[in-house]
């Protein structure tokens, strides 16, 4: 087209980024790749094709890993772990720093390769994916250097199996590998089968960066390879980013294996626009929320909630903006949206949209005839019950509904099984900052969207998964607590005689919702003391008692928003009341254990209550150094309803060690005491009754852990289950928890007298972090 003609049309023309260097790199490898194991690339075998979704061309042949490959990679990682975990932190920092530098030096090659492999616009891979990946390595080079001065009593976990998705191939690799290595772990990573090329290029720079052989291993292939990693006995931790469906399976498969697990899963994140927002900026926010990376973003603001009074006006603005979006060759520098990653994904989007009853609006833009493209789409007229308001589409499709009040906005935002992210748009600081804590999500952006940084945690709640990536919390996902465990397993006394004591019968009951309650089933079990004398009857709880306890916890939800000061006062008061009855408790402990440790245990229990009363208003959140003018706030919030399976050893101290941190952080808790030792627990509710604890905040059940574990951990309204009980119980809990991706925390044989059985380890478990991004400034 001549200059004269262009002056009439004022078109942008084309501005293609050259794929030359990336093609050269592929040719250097004959466009076929093996795995990266023990510091070397294996020869290609069992090939499958990697396709450029923008034009359908096969660009490389990748190898499908076999069991043998997986074993080899895990073995290499296991061998490397010994020296890598022991090496001077500065050495690890140097390696991570070199990786960051090399990513930077090869940034354009990585960007182009990512774009031809994944289909995302070059602007995004060049300006977002690759720079953020570098940032993660820089940040974690620093973490490696200094973390031991900040985090004590924690150590690397071992070999980490990492399974990453296709939407941000190199970035997800960085999010996984950087913290794992900084902490001193070694990894076996499996990229998604559609998008493995940047991982293989990354493997190439690892050797240059001085990564010791075996510290990073990369194996390619489909979901079967992921499954091999999940089931591998020598892998100590699985970190997975992907669909909730697959996350659930991984949770089930790893149940009882002792593997540490973090899951970053799907979402249907709300994008909430109030009538006082800067609407044009909010529309631009939507572009970054749902038309970023073709909408294939787990935290995409895909569910638009609009203040009813501005619905039409805002929809009009969105449609006008959509019509300006340019969809096409992702290598074109002026393109806003590239290709959908794979045909199966495109078909899924098409099918979901074709079924909707809402009004579908497609952007009035051209899309190429060839290649996997989908127009930016807005669906209006939906209500919360519509499928598309609930189900993740994972494509450039925005669905919309309205609200009337801030409370209704919050209720709608939380009316989902997911809880990954949320965007709030309002110029009213009271409204925006008031809403942020109420939304159940791991990340909240105020007047912004899709902001990410290495210095602050990213991750979800509810069925969006658990664990954080980025910041100090992200690092902790790659460390485990080093703590003494009791040398002797608690003796579980099961022998009994029928010799009754002559004391006046005392009826132990359950304690639910601030009241003593008889067990629903009407059964009780005799318990016997250390000398096998009858000590009393304790109730056998059943699933209905659990249900009742959960209802009581729900009714006590105000506890979570009460002040730390109030919670501290109440815990101090518990200590006071326990102190008043210390002799009675001490005697009971001695009676049941046959030892003379009762006095000490009561003393420690009072101390522990004091500790958590102290912590109640001191386990603070933080502000991270994120690269925006504003604050990246990490808030610590209560997890919600927690059920604890208490151990039988040190029945008073262990009960208090579990209950106190939970309630100090604002959770509602139900402790399930095993029959052995449960008389102490039932005695303890009398202390609770006199300590001003609001009804439902602490509930005490007694019963058989194995019978109760499935009901407790499958209950959809329970947010976390802790177990310090037997291994079989752990396995059941972890398996059943997969139903709603509940948090679980299972340890056994803790030495409750150990000072490390108190404090941060418990407080971390009792809280969920929420990252709140608040850009500010007026000028």
């Amino acid at each position, binding site marked *: 087209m001549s200059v004269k003609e262009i*002056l009439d049309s004022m078109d942008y023309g084309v501005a293609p980024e050259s794929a030359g260097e990336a093609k050269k790199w592929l040719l250097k490898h004959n466009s076929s790749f093996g795995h990266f194991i023990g510091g070397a690339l294996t020869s290609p075998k069992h090939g499958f094709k990697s396709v450029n979704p923008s034009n359908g061309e096969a660009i490389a042949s990748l190898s499908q890993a076999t069991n043998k490959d997986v074993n080899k990679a895990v073995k290499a990682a296991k061998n490397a772990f010994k020296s890598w975990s022991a090496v001077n932190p500065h050495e690890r920092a140097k390696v991570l720093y070199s990786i960051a530098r090399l990513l930077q030096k090869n940034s354009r090659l990585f960007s182009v390769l990512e774009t031809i492999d994944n289909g995302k616009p070059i*602007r995004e891979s060049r300006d977002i994916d690759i720079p953020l990946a570098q940032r993660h390595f820089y940040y974690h080079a620093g973490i490696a250097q200094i973390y031991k001065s900040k985090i004590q009593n924690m150590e690397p976990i071992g070999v980490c199996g990492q399974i990453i998705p296709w939407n941000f191939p190199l970035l997800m690799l960085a999010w996984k590998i950087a913290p794992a290595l900084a902490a001193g772990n070694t990894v076996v990573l499996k990229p998604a089968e559609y998008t493995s090329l940047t991982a293989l290029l990354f493997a190439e720079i690892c050797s240059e960066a001085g990564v010791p052989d075996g510290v990073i291993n990369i194996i390619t292939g489909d979901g079967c390879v992921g499954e091999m990693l999940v089931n591998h006995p020598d892998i100590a931790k699985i970190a997975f980013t992907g669909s909730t469906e697959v996350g659930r399976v991984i949770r089930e498969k790893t149940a009882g294996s002792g593997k540490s697990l973090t899951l970053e899963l799907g979402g249907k994140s709300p994008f909430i626009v109030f009538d006082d927002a*800067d609407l044009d*900026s909010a529309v631009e926010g939507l572009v970054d929320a749902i038309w970023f990376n073709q909408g294939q973003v787990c935290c995409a603001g895909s569910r638009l909630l609009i203040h009813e009074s501005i619905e039409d006006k805002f929809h009009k603005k969105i449609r006008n903006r959509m019509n300006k979006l340019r969809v096409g060759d992702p290598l074109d520098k002026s393109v806003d949206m590239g290709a959908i990653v794979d045909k199966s994904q495109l078909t899924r989007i098409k099918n979901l949209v074709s079924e909707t009853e809402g009004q579908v609006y497609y952007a009035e833009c051209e899309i190429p005839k060839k290649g996997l493209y989908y127009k930016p789409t807005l669906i209006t007229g939906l209500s919360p019950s519509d499928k598309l308001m609930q189900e993740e589409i994972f494509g450039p499709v925005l669905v919309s509904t309205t609200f009337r009040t801030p409370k209704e906005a919050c209720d709608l935002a939380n009316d989902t099984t997911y809880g990954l992210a949320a965007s709030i748009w309002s110029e009213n600081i009271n409204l925006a900052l008031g809403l942020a804590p109420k939304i159940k999500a791991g990340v909240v952006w105020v007047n*912004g969207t899709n902001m990410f940084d290495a210095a602050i945690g990213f991750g979800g709640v509810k069925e969006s998964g658990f664990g954080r990536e980025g910041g100090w919390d992200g690092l902790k996902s790659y460390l485990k607590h080093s703590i003494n465990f009791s040398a002797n397993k608690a003796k579980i006394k099961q022998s009994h005689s029928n010799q009754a004591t002559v004391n006046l019968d005392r009826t132990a009951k359950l304690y639910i919702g601030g009241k003593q309650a008889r067990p629903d089933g009407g059964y009780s079990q005799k318990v016997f003391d250390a000398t096998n004398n009858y000590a009393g009857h304790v109730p056998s709880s059943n699933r209905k008692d659990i249900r009742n306890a959960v209802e009581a916890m729900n009714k006590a939800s105000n506890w979570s928003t009460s002040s730390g000061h109030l919670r501290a006062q109440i815990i101090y008061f518990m200590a006071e009341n326990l102190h008043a009855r210390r002799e009675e408790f001490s005697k009971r402990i001695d009676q049941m254990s046959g030892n003379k440790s009762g006095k000490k245990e009561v003393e420690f229990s009072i101390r522990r209550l004091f500790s958590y009363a102290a912590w109640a208003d001191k386990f603070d959140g933080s502000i991270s150094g994120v690269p925006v003018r504003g604050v990246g706030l990490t808030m610590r919030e209560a997890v919600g309803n927690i059920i604890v399976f208490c151990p039988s050893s040190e029945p008073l101290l262990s009960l208090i060690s579990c209950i106190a941190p939970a309630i100090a952080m604002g959770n509602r808790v139900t402790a399930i005491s095993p029959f052995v030792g449960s008389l102490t627990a039932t005695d303890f509710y009398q202390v609770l009754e006199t300590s001003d604890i609001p009804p439902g905040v602490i509930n005490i059940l007694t019963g058989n852990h194995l019978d109760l574990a499935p009901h407790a951990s499958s209950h959809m309204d329970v947010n976390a289950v802790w177990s310090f009980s037997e291994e079989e119980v752990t396995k059941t809990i972890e398996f059943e928890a997969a139903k709603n991706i509940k948090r679980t925390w299972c340890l056994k044989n803790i030495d409750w007298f150990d000072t490390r059985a108190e404090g941060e380890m418990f407080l971390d478990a009792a809280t969920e972090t929420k990252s709140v991004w608040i850009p500010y400034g007026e*000028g």
Partner: protein
Amino acid sequence: MATKNSKKLTLLPKAIIPRNTGVDLDLDWVSSIQANTSAIERRATTIASRRSIKKQYQAAWLIQAVRCMDLTTLSGDDTIGRVKRLCAKAKKPISKTLTDKLGLNNVKVGAVCVYHDMIETAVSKLTGSGIPVAAVSTGFPAGLSPLPLRIAEIEYSVSAGASEIDIVISRRHVLTQNWGDLYDEVRSFRKACGSAHIKTILATGELGTLRNVARASAVCMMAGADFIKTSTGKEPVNATLPVSLVMMRAIREYHEKTGFKIGYKPAGGISKAKDALTYLSLVKEELGDQWLSPDLFRFGASSLLGDIERQLEHYTTGVYSASYRHAMG
């Protein structure tokens, strides 16, 4: 919304765009305007990386930037000789060698912009060229002389032959949220302009916040502005992308509500060809193709042309150019 304005439309001299008659001051509209600084900055910083204009497209866009340029001299030491030279450059901003290679003829700038005393010289020098003369007015740059004098200044300039008047608003009315006074002031200026085209200079660098910029833009348009312009070039901060984004969005909203298309003129601080491309792509994205013409968009610039000439020479020869190879203005 009070848009009960007269539907009797007058036409701008060379355009088929109906001239803004203004509308009643609508304070509900003004107070509902929001501008979130951080979000606006984010959008403004990514516009340059979202659109890339290369090769012949770039050449064409740069020519369009020249056509949309108000070639300006606003110095205390301006002389007749200096203004004549500028007018000569305005008629032939790009050397013939270059325009021939680009297959174009008759490339000229949008207007020449001078102080009142230089109008006569400029008008006589530009007669027959079709290039309008713009005059800064109303006690430019501070706008603090007596109102009757400011109005008289407009009338003087119009009768001297200026067909575009760049007025400055009273910043104090914005800073004290005195929208009624701002509206009346601009309305009286507009009246004084008669058929001359009125550009209202907001002096955005002195308005404190983007929210003020957005609200002042709306009030000026309600009062009948044909163009809204960022700066006098004399404030510490002149045209910026965030300010431009805010003003363009205000223009878009005014158009949606009243049907009138208002022009936009960023002035001061735009000196690189690459910046000009970024501004033009922001215009295309936020306002649409129709605004990519001198009728609705102007750059107020003095040194931008030189860089554009160098870039165009590079495009036609493949060799990087030097400023001495292009005629001075």
